[in-house]
């Protein structure tokens, strides 16, 4: 019943063209060549000429290779049997486990009706003070980690995944170094989290089209879990590789690039993925944390720039620490008023004082005289960096707030902090 074609008219990059009839846009096909078998997807139809994106790339495909159309768009199997498993972007097991074929669900499905969305209200606890105290992560938030290559962003992702109280972790790896893939897998396994995780991994040496599929497959699976009442955390690393894969394919398709070679729909493509983050009223949720490496540490590069316009804030990971400036959780005010009465005040006060510390450092480096106040601020800044910012610090929010008061009290008089007296009376540590 499947239609099979044997004549390939054109081969360029990962795109092949066949002459075929009755083929639908986005239909899935299988290409068999001397190199083996690969899936492919229709991405342009011109009369009876059909362009297909071959997931494994076009290397080794001959004009005689066989193309078989499946008569349906791409989908992914879904079920609890996915948990604990690792697949490629095309859904092939990477872990020597059995192939799963149950319950196919379409990928890249329609978006949630905005009128069905709710205002998010639940905090995600990470044990990292720079997040919990200063830029609280919220269930259903979409947040990127802006970083440069070499920073420990995968370690950060793994830690958050472990500590966040979620039902399911879906990890999408794009262009991952093989070592990083093993690290993530081992980390989840060692800490007993693999059994509630599903991994879709494309490594740097895998075919480029599969890289592009990873977010869609990961999010389609996440969406299924979420509609079944599960709170899902989706980790995507690294979205810049995803964007680069799109760029490469757009160029082979001879699309006119808009900005530094990226296709004009980069924003829409990224948004379609990030907007999958949602809190289903009366059911589960999807929270997305995504690494976005910034080429040349340049936030105006099209990938981080477009990402910033889509996500609900961003974390800057720099020199192994989450930067307090620039980092922002746009949803924090939805939750940090309800945690503890001193949460907002501690967050604001400590950041302001840390800003003074940075200014003082600058003054110091220019050789200006240090006043008594400057000395206090210097002492404060050092402690803040060591006891709050350092990523090895791992304490619950309440203890982090208490620690905040201790540091403040060790460095300043209450009135120097500008904290309202009501809170001072309640929280300022009494000298024993």
């Amino acid at each position, binding site marked *: 019943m499947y239609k099979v074609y044997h004549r390939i008219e054109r081969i360029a990059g990962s795109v092949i063209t066949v002459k075929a*009839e*009755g*083929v*639908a*846009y*986005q*239909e899935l096909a299988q290409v068999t060549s001397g190199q083996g078998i690969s899936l492919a997807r229709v991405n*342009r*139809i*011109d*009369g009876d000429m059909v362009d297909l994106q071959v997931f494994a790339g076009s290397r080794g495909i001959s004009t005689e290779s066989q193309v078989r159309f499946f008569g349906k*768009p791409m989908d992914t199997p879904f079920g609890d049997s996915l948990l604990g498993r690792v697949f490629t972007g095309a859904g092939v097991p990477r872990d020597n486990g059995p192939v799963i074929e149950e319950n196919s669900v379409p990928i890249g*499905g*329609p*978006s*949630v*009706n*905005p*009128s*069905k*969305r709710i*205002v*998010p209200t639940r905090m995600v606890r990470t044990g990292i003070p720079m997040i919990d105290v200063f830029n609280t992560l919220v269930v*259903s938030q979409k947040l990127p980690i802006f970083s440069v290559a070499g920073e420990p962003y995968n370690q950060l992702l793994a830690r958050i995944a472990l500590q966040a109280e979620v039902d399911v972790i879906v990890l999408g790896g794009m262009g991952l170094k093989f070592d990083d893939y093993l690290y993530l897998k081992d980390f989840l396994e060692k800490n007993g989290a693999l059994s509630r995780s599903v991994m879709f991994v494309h490594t740097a040496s895998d075919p480029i089209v599969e890289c592009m599929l990873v977010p869609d497959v990961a999010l389609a699976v996440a969406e299924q879990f979420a*509609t079944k009442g599960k709170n899902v955390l989706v980790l995507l690393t690294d979205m810049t590789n995803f964007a680069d894969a799109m760029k490469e394919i757009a160029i082979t398709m001879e*699309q*006119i*690039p*808009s*900005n530094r070679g990226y*296709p*004009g*729909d980069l*924003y*829409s493509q990224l*948004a*379609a993925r990030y*907007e*999958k983050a949602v809190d*289903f009223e009366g059911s589960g949720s999807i929270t997305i944390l995504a690494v976005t490496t910034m080429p040349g540490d340049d936030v*105006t*590069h*099209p990938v981080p*720039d*477009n990402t*910033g*316009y*889509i996500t*609900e*804030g961003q974390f800057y990971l720099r020199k192994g620490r989450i930067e307090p*400036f*620039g980092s*922002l959780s*746009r*949803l924090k*005010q939805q939750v940090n008023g309800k945690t503890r009465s001193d949460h907002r005040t501690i967050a604001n006060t400590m950041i302001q004082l840390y800003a003074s510390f940075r200014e003082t450092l600058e*003054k110091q480096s*220019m050789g*200006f*005289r240090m006043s008594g106040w400057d000395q206090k601020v210097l002492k404060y800044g050092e402690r803040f960096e060591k006891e709050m910012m350092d990523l090895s610090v791992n304490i619950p929010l309440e203890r982090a707030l208490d620690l905040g008061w201790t540091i403040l009290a060790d460095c300043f008089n209450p009135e120097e902090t500008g904290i309202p007296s009501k809170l001072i009376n309640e929280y300022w540590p009494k000298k024993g």
Partner: protein
Amino acid sequence: MATNGKIIGVNGNLIRVAFTDAVVQNEVAYAKLASGVKLKSEVIRIRGDYAELQVFEDTTGLKTGDDVEFTGELLSVELGPGLLTQIFDGLQNPLPRLATECGFFLQRGKYLHALPRRKKWTFTPVAKVGDKLTAGETLGTVPEGIFKHRIMVPFKIQGTVTVESILAEGDYVIEDVIATLKDGEGKIIDAKMSQFWPIKIPIKQYAERLRPDEPMVTQQRIIDTFFPVARGGTYCIPGPFGAGKTVLQQLTSRYADVDIVIFAACGERAGEVVETLREFPDLLDPRTGKSLMERTLIICNTSSMPVAAREASVYTGVTLAEYYRQMGLNVLLLADSTSRWAQALREMSGRLEEIPGEEAFPAYLESVIASFYERGGVVRLKDGTKGSVTIGGTVSPAGGNFEEPVTQATLKVVGAFHGLSRERSDQRRFPAIHPLDSWSKYEGIIDVAKVSAARHILAEGGDVNQMMKVVGEEGTSMEDFVLYLKSEYLDAVYLQQDAYNDIDSACSAERQKYLFGKVFQILKTPMTFKEKDVARSFFLKLTQITKDWNRVEFQSQEFKNLEVQIFKSVAEAEIHV
């Protein structure tokens, strides 16, 4: 006269369709999937015997040979009572009703009536049999929430018509014929409470267009005092991500002194619309004492919804705005973000393989933006009353750099520019409108000379600050130092406004005039201090009390007490000659 065609190519949301009979540019067509589901599309280019159509939905599953039905109608919206308080997608589908039918997810090919069919409206006739009227003149009214909704002679009608019959006062549904009209050729036309109008054609059934000369108070000090917007004017808010464009529009949608606010969320986050959606019903509009939702209408085509409908969403928004202007109302249209709509144009232009302009935007980008903003304006209606459409659009420039095509094209046509600065938003100086780079061509609520003197202080204070970074405080004279502190004071207590404080978030025109007068007086007071540290702590304290002053009820006892306190401390610092 509908014709049919067949698909001969699919490329993303662009399809190529071979046809035989006549096809109209910009007419609506439906592409039929094998499942029978029909996808709404619009003809955007015609070439010989085939047409190119943009499909407003995901095109997965369309094939060469699939049927296309042309409708002969331009892409239109339905106008009539019952629009307000609704949430539509870019094609005017009511989203909450869609949710009741389809659940959590949008479903392609599902189109519902924009206006409820069975709801009864109490119609009061205004026109009488025998009256001679033209398009846009009032036949009668129905109450729509807090407004008197005018039922008008259909806008399509040309020339003068005579009222042949009109219904008596009573309850009717929108599809009832409420009047019959006879045109010059003796043809009888039925007028209903609802009518359709193509979104890309401006509604111009008014007597004349006027100059926008009345300020539209937004209750944001930096806007009303420094960069005012006029009713019927246009303005833009470009800014890098996270600089506060959306928050500023949300504040404006709440506090602006207009009758109706139409919010077009175009290609931005769904979550932000939800905030408005969930909060507005519970917020009271101080002007009417009713829920803010009663004056609000939301068009919502967020970033993951079909890209082609983004363009439609801004036109749908402005058409609905023009409709209410025809009723003598002041309407504000907020579009967030026009860049997403420009990007949708770019995507389509790329698929059409047009010759790209700068950053691959189409060459006609400028004229499209210009004709959109041209639809704003104050008009005198045929009955002498005035109505206005004010348009405010955000722009999201790539890399936050204003030297890009969308920002530049927009700046050429708008009357005010509220440029948000990354530096100010990083310092959390909100609203982050740059006080020196921004401009407005409209008249505000405060004396121009004083405003320009205040801007002068900001500029000079900024210069001193720059100098100080090089020479240090030691190398700065007391006079310059005080100037710098004064500029920071003006910034902190006047330009910045706390969006999350119940009172400070909205500052009435009256209060702005009062506050500006007082702050200006302080700025003009010559002051000197023994030491810079003394000066700094004086201004710190003054800033603190003035901020407290901003946070108490205008003219309350507390307000008066704080004012006394402020001026007492100013008097202490004043140089007496």
